[in-house]
C-alpha cells in the first residue's frame, strides 16, 4: 500500500516527528549565521511530504499500527514509549504538518528582518517537533511530555519579543495557566496508573485486543476524567482557564495562527478524543456544559474587543467550546472534523490579520504614527488596498460563520445538529445547550462581520499619508500564497463532495464515533437554514451599524464594557488568585521569619539567657564564696599591714593602747 516510500508508517512517523527537532538543533548550533529559516522550512516540507504519503495514506481507513520500545523500568513497571498510528493520530499529525507548512512560508516574509529571527526558527521547529510528537504518542506519560513541551515552545514564542513587558507577562500567564491543566493531566495519569497499572494507550483502550476492564461507574474514573478534562481545559482555553489565550496574542501573528489557533490549542480536544473511552456520563456532561459556557462567553467577549487579534483569539476560544461540546455529546468525530476545518480557516484568519497588521506596522513606521496597528478603530476601507487579503479573509469569515459552500458549514452543522439530536434524546433542560450553541453561531457571524466591516469597509483614516506618497500595498506574495492555499482548504470540496451533508464528509465517515441518537430529519433541514439566514441577518445588521455608521449603542454601554473587559475575569483572577497567592506567600514568609525562625532564635536566646544566669551564679555565688574568703583574708592582712605604716606616732599609739589594755587587765584582775 505504500508505494511512495519504502518505509513503514511507524518509521515514517518518527521521521516526521524528528525532522523538526533536527532542524531546531541545527538552528541552535548555527545560531545567528542562519536567519533565512531554510532549515526549518526544508524540515517541515519533508515532514509534510512524509506525513502525507508515508503515514496518512497508508494508515487512513486502512490499518492501526503501533510499535513500542522499553524506555526505562521503575520498580517492576517498564515504561514503554512508542508510536501509535490510527486514523485519529494520523489525521492529527497530517493536519499539524499541513498547517505548519504555510505558516513557515508565511513567516519568512512576516518575520523578515527581525533581529531575533534565528531564535524564531529554532522555537518554531521545536514547537513542530513537540506537536507532531504529541499526536502520535503511545504512552500517556509520553503524551504528557510532549504536551508540556508544546506549552514550553508556546511560552518561548509568546515571549519572543522579550523586551516587551506585555509579552513576557503574557507568556508567563500562558505557561502558568497551562501548568494548572498539566497538573490535572498528571493527576489523571497517576490515577490511571494506580488503577490500571499501565499508561499504554493501546493496552488501555483496546486497540490491540488486550483491554483492561475499566468500571466506568467507579469514582476514580470520574475523577480521572475530570482531571484529564482539566488538562484539556487549560490547553484548549476553556472557561475559566481561557484567560491566557487572548494575552498570548502578544506573540508574532504567525505564531498565533499556528499555535494559538490551529494546532496547540486543539491538543486539548485531541487529548479528550484520545482518552474518550475513559469518560463516563458525568464527565461528558461537565465537558458539555463547560464547552457551551466557553463558546457563549467567548463569543460575547469577542463582540467588545477592539484588537483584531483578540477578536480572533476569542473566536478561537468560542470554536474550541464548540469542539468541547462535540466531545461532550459523544460526537468526538464531529469535534475532530470541526477541529480540522477550524484549523484551516482560523489559521487563515490570523494570517490575513497578520497581513493587515504587517502593512499597518509599515505605515506606522513610515508615517511615524503613534497608533496600535492591531486596533480596529484605526482600520477601515482596506479592501481597496489589499483586495486579495480581503477575499481570503472573507472566505475564512464565511467558513467561520458557517456559510454554505464552506468547510465550516459542514463541521459546525455537524456539531449543532448532533447536539439537537443528543438533547432530543435526553430531553429536559439539556435542550438549552443546542439553543445556546445556535445563539453563539449567530453571535459568531456578527462579530466576524464586525471585524470585516470595520477593517475592510468604510474609510481609511490615514489616506492622507498615502496621498503623500507612502506606499500601502497588498501583502507580499510570499504571504499571499500560503493564504490562498488555506483559503482553498476552507472550502467544502476538500472535505467532501456533498455540499450539505456532513455525514458524507470523509473525516466523519472514517472517524465514526458511533453516536446513535435518533436522527431528527427536521434538524438537518431547519438548522442550516436558521444558521445561514441568521448569519445573513446579522451581517446586514452589522453592515448598517458599522459601515453605514448607524451604531445604536453608546460607547459607555455596560454590556459593551463588560465584553471589552472580558467579563472582568482577568481582574478577578488578579485580585483573587495572584494577589491571594503572593499575599499568602508573604504571610508565610513572615511566619517563617518570625515564628519558625523566631522559635529558633527564641530558643537560642533562651539558652543564652540561661548561660548568662549560670555565669552570674558562677561568678557571684560559686566564685563569690571563694572570693569572699580570700577577700576577708586579704582585708585582715591589709588591716594588719597598716599597723606597720612607718609612723612613729602610730607605733606609739599602739604601744600605748597595749599598755592601757594591759593595765586595765591588771586592774580588773
Amino acid at each position: 500500500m505504500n508505494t511512495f516510500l519504502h518505509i513503514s508508517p511507524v518509521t515514517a512517523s518518527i521521521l516526521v516527528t524528528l525532522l523538526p527537532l533536527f532542524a531546531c538543533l541545527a538552528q541552535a548550533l548555527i545560531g545567528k549565521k542562519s536567519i533565512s529559516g531554510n532549515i526549518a522550512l526544508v524540515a517541515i516540507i519533508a515532514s509534510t511530504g512524509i506525513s502525507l504519503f508515508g503515514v496518512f495514506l497508508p494508515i487512513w481507513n486502512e490499518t492501526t499500527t503501533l510499535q513500542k520500545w522499553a524506555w526505562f523500568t521503575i520498580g517492576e513497571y517498564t515504561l514503554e514509549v512508542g508510536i501509535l498510528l490510527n486514523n485519529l493520530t494520523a489525521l492529527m499529525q497530517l493536519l499539524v504538518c499541513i498547517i505548519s507548512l504555510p505558516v513557515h512560508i508565511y513567516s519568512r516574509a512576516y518575520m523578515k528582518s527581525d533581529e531575533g529571527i534565528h531564535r524564531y526558527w529554532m522555537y518554531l521547529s521545536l514547537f513542530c517537533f513537540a506537536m507532531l510528537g504529541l499526536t502520535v504518542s503511545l504512552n500517556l506519560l509520553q503524551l504528557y511530555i510532549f504536551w508540556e513541551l508544546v506549552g514550553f515552545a508556546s511560552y518561548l514564542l509568546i515571549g519572543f519579543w522579550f523586551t516587551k513587558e506585555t509579552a513576557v507577562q503574557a507568556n508567563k500567564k500562558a505557561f502558568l495557566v497551562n501548568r494548572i491543566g498539566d497538573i490535572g493531566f498528571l493527576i489523571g495519569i497517576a490515577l490511571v496508573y494506580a488503577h490500571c497499572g499501565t499508561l499504554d494507550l493501546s493496552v488501555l483502550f483496546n486497540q490491540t485486543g488486550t483491554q483492561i476492564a475499566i468500571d466506568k461507574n467507579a469514582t476514580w474514573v470520574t475523577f480521572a476524567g475530570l482531571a484529564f478534562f482539566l488538562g484539556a481545559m487549560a490547553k484548549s482555553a476553556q472557561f475559566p482557564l481561557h484567560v491566557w489565550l487572548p494575552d498570548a496574542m502578544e506573540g508574532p501573528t504567525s505564531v498565533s495562527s499556528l499555535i494559538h489557533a490551529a494546532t496547540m490549542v486543539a491538543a486539548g480536544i485531541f487529548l479528550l478524543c484520545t482518552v474518550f473511552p475513559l469518560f463516563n456520563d458525568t464527565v461528558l456532561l461537565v465537558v458539555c456544559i463547560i464547552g457551551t459556557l466557553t463558546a457563549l462567553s467567548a463569543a460575547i467577549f469577542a463582540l467588545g474587543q477592539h484588537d483584531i487579534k483578540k477578536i480572533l483569539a476569542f473566536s478561537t476560544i468560542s470554536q474550541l467550546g464548540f469542539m468541547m461540546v462535540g466531545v461532550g455529546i459523544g460526537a468526538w468525530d464531529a469535534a475532530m472534523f470541526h477541529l480540522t476545518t477550524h484549523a484551516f480557516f482560523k489559521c487563515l484568519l490570523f494570517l490575513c490579520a497578520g497581513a493587515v497588521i504587517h502593512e499597518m506596522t509599515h505605515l506606522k513606521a513610515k508615517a511615524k504614527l503613534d497608533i496600535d496597528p492591531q486596533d480596529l478603530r484605526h482600520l477601515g476601507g482596506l479592501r481597496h488596498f489589499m483586495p486579495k487579503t480581503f477575499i481570503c479573509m472573507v472566505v475564512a469569515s464565511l467558513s467561520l460563520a458557517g456559510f454554505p459552500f464552506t468547510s465550516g458549514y459542514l463541521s459546525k452543522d455537524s456539531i449543532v445538529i448532533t447536539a439537537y439530536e443528543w438533547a432530543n434524546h435526553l430531553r429536559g433542560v439539556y435542550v438549552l445547550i443546542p439553543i445556546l450553541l445556535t445563539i453563539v453561531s449567530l453571535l459568531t457571524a456578527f462579530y466576524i462581520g464586525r471585524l470585516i466591516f470595520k477593517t475592510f469597509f468604510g474609510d481609511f483614516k490615514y489616506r492622507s499619508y498615502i496621498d503623500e506618497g507612502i506606499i500601502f500595498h497588498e501583502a507580499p506574495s510570499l504571504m499571499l500564497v500560503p493564504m490562498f492555499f488555506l483559503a482553498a482548504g476552507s472550502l467544502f470540496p476538500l472535505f467532501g463532495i456533498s455540499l450539505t451533508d456532513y455525514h458524507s464528509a470523509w473525516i466523519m465517515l472514517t472517524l465514526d464515533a458511533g453516536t446513535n441518537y435518533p436522527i431528527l430529519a427536521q434538524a438537518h433541514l431547519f438548522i442550516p437554514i436558521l444558521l445561514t439566514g441568521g448569519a445573513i441577518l446579522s451581517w446586514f445588521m452589522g453592515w448598517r451599524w458599522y459601515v453605514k455608521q448607524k451604531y445604536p449603542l453608546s460607547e459607555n454601554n455596560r454590556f459593551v464594557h463588560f465584553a471589552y473587559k472580558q467579563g472582568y475575569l482577568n481582574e478577578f483572577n488578579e485580585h483573587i488568585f495572584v494577589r491571594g497567592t503572593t499575599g499568602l506567600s508573604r504571610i508565610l514568609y513572615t511566619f517563617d521569619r518570625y515564628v519558625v525562625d523566631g522559635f529558633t532564635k527564641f530558643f537560642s536566646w533562651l539558652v543564652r539567657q540561661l548561660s548568662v544566669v549560670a555565669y552570674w551564679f558562677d561568678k557571684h555565688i560559686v566564685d563569690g564564696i571563694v572570693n569572699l574568703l580570700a577577700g576577708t583574708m586579704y582585708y585582715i592582712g591589709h588591716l594588719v599591714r597598716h599597723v606597720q605604716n612607718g609612723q612613729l606616732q602610730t607605733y606609739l599609739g599602739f604601744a600605748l593602747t597595749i599598755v592601757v589594755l594591759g593595765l586595765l587587765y591588771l586592774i580588773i584582775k
Partner: protein
Amino acid sequence: MITLTHFLVVSACIFCIGLYAVLAKRNTIMILVGIELMINAAILNFVAFGKYDKVNYGGQVFAIFAIVLAAAAVAVGLAIILNVYRHFNTINPQNIHELKD
C-alpha cells in the same frame, strides 16, 4: 590640806596632755613640746614624792637630773628635727614613714 594625791592628779593631767600632743600633733616641734610636758609631769611627781624622803633627798636630786636631761634632750631633739627637715623637706611625722615595710 594639799595631799600627795593632789600632786599626782595634776601631774597625771599634764602627762596625759603631753601624751596627747605626742600622739596627735602634726608638727615635730609640738611633739617635742609634748615630751617636755610629760617630763615636767614626771618632775612634779619626783618632787611630790621627794617630800617624804628627807634622808636621801632623792626626789629633788633626780628632779634636777631630769631637768638637765630634758634640756639636753631638747637640744639634741631640735638638732635632729632640723636634720630631718633638711632630709625630708617636711616635719610632719605622718609623711616620714621610712620605717614602713
